[in-house]
């Protein structure tokens, strides 16, 4: 039984990454209608920026948490301005192909220079060590990841669903012409939204740097699972993707305990089941 508690907690930790990443995807899909396949590559860039900040600029983890999302977010906004904006109104497939191509290029460039086995990034001194919870030894850093990502997820949800700015954003997706008539710069808002979604991916990248290796393919390995999370939660649903992210982390954790061989397929089995029963996802609305 104690082992089970530990597995639940570990699942929750992985769930935090799923939640952060699927949240960014949901924001981008909800507001821009783009299936952002470059998300994994941008997550990886977040981790690499943290690595560069530390090793080239001597800038520590805490600053990286702030700076990496901004730097990668700006990179994302440049992508949106120069490429993605031309796809407005076209079929989803174009956005998917374009972002997929971008992901392959970005990963290829990083792989060319840094190889595939990755670079080490140490856990910051303040978060080293762990505490004994009785049923398991919890590394402080993992606990921090859960708490921090939960706060970020809820803040994002609040920003989009409960504030004036969020209301503009949602309105701009529904009817851009009308919102523009109110004197709101819709294209700029969309660029900023993409920047926000990308920033969330980069933030997840910084959080994962001390746990996993900083590797060019770290995002490619994760992105498919995260897409399954978004599909299960319902495309574009903010709260749905947060809850599904954490929930799937836990389910995956339990699978690792009861039948480890299936741990990398369980998410997809669930996705198939959900699509069969409720094609719009658990919290999605019919389009």
């Amino acid at each position, binding site marked *: 039984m104690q082992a089970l508690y530990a597995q639940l907690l570990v699942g929750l930790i992985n769930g935090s990454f799923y939640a952060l990443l699927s949240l960014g995807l949901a924001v981008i899909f909800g507001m821009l209608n783009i299936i952002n396949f470059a998300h994994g590559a941008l997550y990886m860039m977040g981790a690499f920026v943290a690595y560069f900040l530390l090793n080239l600029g001597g800038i520590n983890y805490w600053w990286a948490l702030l700076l990496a999302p901004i730097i990668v977010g700006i990179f994302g906004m440049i992508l949106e301005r120069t490429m993605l904006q031309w796809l407005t109104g076209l079929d989803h497939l174009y956005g998917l192909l374009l972002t997929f191509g971008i992901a392959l290029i970005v990963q290829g460039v990083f792989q060319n220079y840094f*190889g595939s086995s990755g*670079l080490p990034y140490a856990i910051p001194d303040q978060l080293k060590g762990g505490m004994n919870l009785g049923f398991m030894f919890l590394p402080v850093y993992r606990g921090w990841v859960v708490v921090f990502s939960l706060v970020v997820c809820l803040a994002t949800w609040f920003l989009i669903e409960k504030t004036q700015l969020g209301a503009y954003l949602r309105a701009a997706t529904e009817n851009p012409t009308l919102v523009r008539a109110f004197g709101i710069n819709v294209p700029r808002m969309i660029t900023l939204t993409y920047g926000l979604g990308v920033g969330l991916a980069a933030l997840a990248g910084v959080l994962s740097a001390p746990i996993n290796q900083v590797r060019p393919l770290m995002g490619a390995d994760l992105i498919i699972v995260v897409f399954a999370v978004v599909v299960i939660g319902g495309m574009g649903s903010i709260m749905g993707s947060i809850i599904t992210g954490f929930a799937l982390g836990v389910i995956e954790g339990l699978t690792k*305990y009861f039948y480890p061989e299936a741990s990398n397929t369980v998410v997809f089995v669930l996705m198939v089941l959900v699509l069969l029963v409720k094609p719009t996802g658990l919290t999605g609305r019919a389009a």
Partner: protein
Amino acid sequence: MKTRSIASLLLTTALTFAATCVASAQDKTVKIGALSDQSGLYADLGGPGSTLAAQMAVEDSGLAAKGWKIDVISGDHQNKPDIGTAIARQWFDVDKVDVIVDVPNSGVALAVNNVIKEKNGVYINSGAATSDLSNAQCSPNTVHWTYDTYMLAHTTGQALVKAGGDTWFFLTADYAFGAALERDTSAVVTANGGKVLGGVKHPLNTPDFSSFLLQAQASKAKIIGLANAGGDTTNAIKQAAEFGIGKGGQKLAALLLFLTDVKAIGLETAQGLNFTETFYWDMNDKTRAFSKRFAEKMKNNAPPTMVQAGVYAGVRHYLKALEALGGNPHDGVKIVEKMKSMPTEDDLFGKGEIQPNGRTIHNAYLFEVKKPSESKGPWDFYKLVGTVPGDQAFTPLSESKCALLKK
């Protein structure tokens, strides 16, 4: 009538002679295919570096100056047996490749082994670990260089059991390699009076090991054996440190660890790990000289891993055999027989031999990862702890189930 027959005889002779000339000219062409994981979790330990090693072996052989034309091509099997076999088939059928080298990933390696046997090519495997390549699934076309699971189990595994690590729990990569390494190590553990308490099979390329590490922790085994490789091993080691596994008295056994893995983990976390390799760049003047030349040509200036070194040594020996045969007969079995009949000797592995089952025998070295304070350069990672002579490190012929031995 007579004049006519003489003329035809002359013509036939001339034609035959011309044909022989063409044939012998063709016989000096060789095509080497370096098949590896070019972009995935094993790309740094093999990948482009293995292709480079093969090219350097061709250059160093000096055969080009003697009129030989030797090409090296490369392919990416993406760690998928179906892709690996498809490339191998195309190489033999369309591209006229003579020899396939490297092939890390035991699953792919065993699948490609069958194709090469069917096509009567030559297979010099350096990257794959499974001891089955020279045991139950040995082939007259195959030479297995560098290392294998039997060797890893009988060096690192045995040393740890003898040092008191008599209870084991395995974290095993869920494919041919992991299964072979766990099987061979378990045999060593039990033979030395130890006990295997359990294990978990994890999918290949797992980013998060925390769940499996907790299970290993709960088993209370003294040794947690990592029967995995590349990115899986580095993640497991790094995360084990996070969960305080070393401090709790349990010890990690990195059964297979490469130079590039240590680089990825960082000395801070990796220090003190014991493991076995058959090549390290900083062994002697010859290995240092080769590694310097190699690193200069690598993008990230990395010295060779033992897999890449094995590719170099294997190709050198292959070309020596071809030169001794006087040309390339394009007959895999004949070339491999010649390779087995000649003792191996090169700058990287020293003296050795290829056994009748295709296993190359050379020294194996027990290393320990240095402390950060002991490391003097960017790739100065290992301390030599002990040397195991080849005949003690690899499967004794009496234990081998290879069909080639039953004549």
